[in-house]
C-alpha cells in the first residue's frame, strides 16, 4: 500500500491507454485545487449556508471551564391528560434537538412556531395523543473547573396548541 495510490504496487503500468490526456489531467488538477480552495474558504471564513463548502465546525465551539452547558428540550401536555418529553429526533417529531437549537432565537421570539412541532408530531404519529401545550425549556449545567457542579431549568417559551384534535 502506498501514499500516492498504487505507487507502492509492484506491477508496472503496461497500458498506455491508462494515461490521461493533457486536457484530462488539466481539468482534474483544476477541480482538485478548486475543491480544496472552496473547502478551506468555508472553514476559514464561510458559514453554514454554504454547504457543502461550509465550516467543518461540529464540536468546534469553545466551552469555558467555568461556563455553562445548555441542553434544550420540549415538554408537552397531551389530549390524554399526560405530560411527556417531546422526542426531538428524526423518528420522533422529525426535527432533532440541534435543529431546534439552531432555530432557538426564532422560536423564542415567535412561540407560535411551536405549533409546527405539534403538527409534525400529528402527521408522523397519527396514533399518538395530540399535544395541547408545549413548553420550550433548557437544562443549564454550571461548570467549575470543567466539572458540572449544579443543574437548573430555564423557561424559554410556552405555546398553547391551536385546535389540537384537528392537527394535520
Amino acid at each position: 500500500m502506498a501514499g500516492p495510490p498504487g505507487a507502492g504496487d509492484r506491477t508496472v503500468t503496461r497500458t498506455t491507454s491508462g494515461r490521461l490526456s493533457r486536457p484530462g489531467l488539466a481539468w482534474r488538477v483544476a477541480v482538485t485545487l478548486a475543491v480544496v480552495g472552496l473547502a478551506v474558504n468555508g472553514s476559514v471564513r464561510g458559514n453554514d449556508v454554504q454547504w457543502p463548502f461550509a465550516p467543518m465546525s461540529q464540536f468546534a465551539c469553545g466551552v469555558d471551564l467555568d461556563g455553562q452547558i445548555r441542553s434544550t428540550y420540549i415538554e408537552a401536555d397531551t389530549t390524554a391528560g399526560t405530560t411527556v418529553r417531546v422526542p426531538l429526533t428524526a423518528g420522533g417529531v422529525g426535527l432533532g434537538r440541534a435543529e431546534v437549537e439552531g432555530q432557538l432565537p426564532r422560536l423564542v421570539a415567535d412561540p407560535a412556531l411551536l405549533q409546527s412541532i405539534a403538527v409534525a408530531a400529528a402527521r408522523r404519529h397519527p396514533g399518538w395523543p395530540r399535544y395541547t401545550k408545549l413548553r420550550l425549556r433548557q437544562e443549564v449545567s454550571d461548570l467549575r473547573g470543567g466539572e458540572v457542579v449544579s443543574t437548573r431549568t430555564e423557561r424559554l417559551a410556552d405555546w398553547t396548541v391551536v385546535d389540537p384534535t384537528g392537527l394535520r
Partner: protein
Amino acid sequence: MRTWFAGTVPARRIAVLRTVIYLFVVVDVLRIGNDPLAHGDVPANLYRPILLRSWLHLPAPSHDYVRVLLGLLVVSALVAATGRLPRLAGWVCLLALLDWMSNNYSYSKIDHDQFALVLALAVLPTAGPARWRDGDEIRSEAAGWAVRMVQVGVVCCYFLSAVSKMRFGGWGWANGAIFTWAFTRRGTAPTDLLLSVPGLVHLMQWVVLVAEFCSPALLVVRGRLLWAGLAFFATFHLMTYLTIRIHFLPLVVCLTAFLPLERLVPHRLLTSSSAVRRQAAPAQAAAS
C-alpha cells in the same frame, strides 16, 4: 505532479470502491442520514434553505417529494454499486444525494461528516469502466485521480475541523470543556467513567486536535505509518460512537480509499481473457 494527482491504480480498486461507497449510500439514506424523510412531514415555516437549494430552486421537502427522491437515490446507488452505467447512475446518484443532504441541512443544523462522501460521489463517475474481475494489468490514471480525491476529501474533513476549532473555539479550544459539554449532553455509561478520571478528557482533546492538524500526512506517508494513521482515526470514530453515539460513518467509509481494495477480490475471480479484452478500454474513455 501527474503521479501525485493521478497516479495509476488498478481499475479493480475503483470497482471495489464503487461497490463499497454506493452500497453505503443505500444504508446511509435508509438508516443513518434519514432525517430528510422525516423533514417531509415538518411544516415549511421551519424550513431554512441553504444556498444550494435556493440557487437550484429546490422546493421545501414534502411527504411525497422525499419518498420519490429516496427511491431514485436507492435505485441509482444500487445500479452504480454493480459497476454498470457508472456515469449515468453515478451522476443521478450524486444529484439525488445533493438534494437529500441539502434537505437534511436546511433546518438549521449542518454536519460535516458527509463532505468526503459527497466528493466521492462527484468523482467516481469520472473514473471510467471498472469491473471486479479486471486483472492487475488494467490500470488507469483516471481511477487514480478519483481515489486521490476521496483521500483529499477525508483529509479536508480532519484538517479543516482543526482549523474550525481554532476559528470558533480559539487557541484555547483544547484547554476548554468541549468533551465535558458533549458528554453531558449525550452521556452514556462510558462517558461517566471517562469524566471521573482527572485530566483524561483534557488529554483526549489535545490528542484529537494534534491528530487532526497532522492528518495531511495521510496523503504523504506510506506503509506502516499510513496503516497506523488509518487505525488511529478508525479507533477515534469507534470511541466517539461508544461514548456519545456519534459515528461519522460516512467519513469512515471514505477511509477505505486509502486501502488496496483490489486485494479484496479473490484471485480466482480474475479473468485474464476479460483483462485482455478490456485492456485498451477503461481509462481511455475516461481520459477526456
